[in-house]
């Protein structure tokens, strides 16, 4: 049973460029969340997707956008990259908690390490 998979594992970009990161959820999961983890810091919530819609968003600018596809996979897009966007980007999947009236744990991939030069 494949867990959460993310691609690519590493990426190097320059300031001002745009990047797309990809995530395939764990089999059977329908909800995808994205987190940013700066070096030496805890993960910070970016947004969550369910039924192809953004359902909740953290304190991130509009340069950060996403998409969820009918097969539940997801993309994270970041425009106009800044040096401060260098981080490990983590994707997490889960079953939808609202539909099941219980808090479902999120399962994480190994992340994409994004470096901005």
């Amino acid at each position: 049973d494949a867990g959460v998979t993310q691609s690519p594992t590493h990426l190097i970009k320059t300031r001002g460029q745009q990047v797309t990161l990809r995530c395939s959820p764990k089999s059977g999961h329908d909800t995808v969340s994205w987190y940013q983890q700066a070096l030496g810091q805890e993960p910070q919530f970016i947004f969550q997707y369910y039924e192809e819609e953004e359902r909740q968003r953290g304190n991130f600018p509009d340069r950060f956008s996403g998409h969820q596809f009918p097969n539940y996979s997801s993309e994270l897009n970041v425009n106009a990259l800044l040096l401060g966007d260098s981080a490990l980007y983590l994707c997490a999947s889960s079953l939808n908690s609202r539909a099941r009236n219980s808090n479902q744990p999120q399962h994480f991939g190994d992340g994409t390490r994004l470096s901005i030069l």
Partner: protein
Amino acid sequence: AQSVTQLDSHVSVSEGTPVLLRCNYSSSYSPSLFWYVQHPNKGLQLLLKYTSAATLVKGINGFEAEFKKSETSFHLTKPSAHMSDAAEYFCVVSPRATGFQKLVFGTGTRLLVSP
């Protein structure tokens, strides 16, 4: 708003001795609480979760945690540390059953295990 405070940034133990990683939470709702572990250059692995079914929660790799509402604590313990336990540990809170919940992480505790 929900938050967690991890009381120690670093904890050092010897192999074979007990582990205690401390976490206090703040939540307006009855929370769900989790412990995750992160090994270097890896993602986060769920160790255990509390969702009100039982106050003493057993997780993987011999870890367990006890939810104490009166103390607003959710400390992680293990009777005997192993070298492979060396990693970063995050205490995490999430509002319970409110739908599209996000995870709020503590700042992490680095566990160091010496031979």
